[in-house]
C-alpha cells in the first residue's frame, strides 16, 4: 500500500513537472539558453515534502519523459537537462537536509538555480565546446538564475504549504 501511494505521488509530481516544463517552452525568451526552470518548483516541493530521493526520482523521470515527448531524447539537450537537473537537485536536497533551519525554500531554490547553471555550463565545456569563452555567458546566466530562483522558491513555498494540507499527499518518510 505504501509503495502504491509512493508511486502515485511520484507519478503526479513527474506529470506536474513535465506540464510546467512544457508550458515554459511557450514563453518567449530573447535567448534559447535563458529559461525560467519552473520544473524546479516541483522538484523543490518534492524535496521539502518527501526528501532528496523523491526529488531525484522526479528530476530523472522528468528529463527522460520530457525529452522523449519533445523528441530531444539522448541529444545534447537531454544531457544538459539531466546534468543541470541532477546537479541542482543534489544541492537543494543536501541544503534542505542540513540547512532547513537556516534558509527558507527561497534561499534553497536560489542555491539550486546557481548549481544548475554551473553544472550545465561545465558540461557544455567538457563535452561540447572546449573553449574558455563558454564561461563568458556565466555571469549573465547566474544573475538571471538568482531572479528565477527567487520566483521558483516563492512558488514552491506556496505549493508545499498547499499540498501539505491534503492527506492524499501525506506520506511519512516514503523515501
Amino acid at each position, binding site marked *: 500500500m505504501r509503495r502504491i501511494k509512493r508511486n502515485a505521488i511520484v507519478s503526479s509530481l513527474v506529470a506536474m513537472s513535465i506540464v510546467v516544463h512544457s508550458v515554459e517552452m511557450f514563453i518567449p525568451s530573447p535567448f534559447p539558453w535563458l529559461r525560467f526552470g519552473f520544473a524546479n518548483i516541483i522538484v523543490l516541493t518534492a524535496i521539502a515534502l518527501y526528501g532528496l530521493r523523491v526529488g531525484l526520482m522526479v528530476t530523472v523521470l522528468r528529463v527522460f519523459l520530457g525529452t522523449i515527448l519533445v523528441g530531444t531524447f539522448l541529444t545534447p539537450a537531454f544531457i544538459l537537462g539531466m546534468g543541470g537537473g541532477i546537479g541542482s537537485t543534489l544541492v537543494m536536497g543536501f541544503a534542505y537536509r542540513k540547512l532547513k533551519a*537556516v*534558509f*527558507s525554500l*527561497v*534561499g534553497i531554490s*536560489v*542555491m539550486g538555480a*546557481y548549481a544548475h547553471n554551473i553544472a550545465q555550463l561545465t558540461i557544455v565545456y567538457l563535452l561540447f565546446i572546449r*573553449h*574558455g*569563452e563558454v*564561461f*563568458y555567458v*556565466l*555571469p549573465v546566466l*547566474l*544573475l538571471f538564475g*538568482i531572479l528565477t530562483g*527567487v520566483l521558483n522558491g*516563492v512558488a514552491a*513555498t506556496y505549493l508545499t504549504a498547499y499540498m501539505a494540507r491534503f492527506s492524499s499527499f501525506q506520506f511519512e518518510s516514503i523515501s
Partner: protein
Amino acid sequence: MLTLPDKILIGGLVIVTLLSFPTIRHFHHEGKRVVIELDGDVVGNFPLKDDRLLPVEGKLGKTWVKMAEGRVRIVDSPCPYKLCVKSGSIRMSGENLICLPNKVVVRIAGDDGEAVDAVSR
C-alpha cells in the same frame, strides 16, 4: 517568507556574480594571431599587432583584409552582398570574418596560432 540568511545569501550571490563580470574577462583570451584561410587552406598567419593591408586572391577576385590597431576587418571584397565587409572588425580569439562567395575566412587565434609568419601557398 525570506529569512535573514536568505537575504544575505541572495545579496552575496548577486554581488559575487556582478564582480565576476569584469573578472571573467581574464579568461577570455585576447587574440594573438590573424589566420587567413582560402577554400579551407591556411594562406596567411600574422601577429595581430601588425599593421597590414593584404589582398587575398580568391575565385572572384581580391578580398582586401586590413589589419590595424590590433583589429582586423575586410575593407573590400568582390562578393555580391559584402556581408564580410559589413561584419565590421574583430579582435578577440575565436572571432572570425567569413566571405562565403570568395571562400575567404579570416579568424583570430590565441597563442597557439601556427608559427608560420608569412603567406605560405
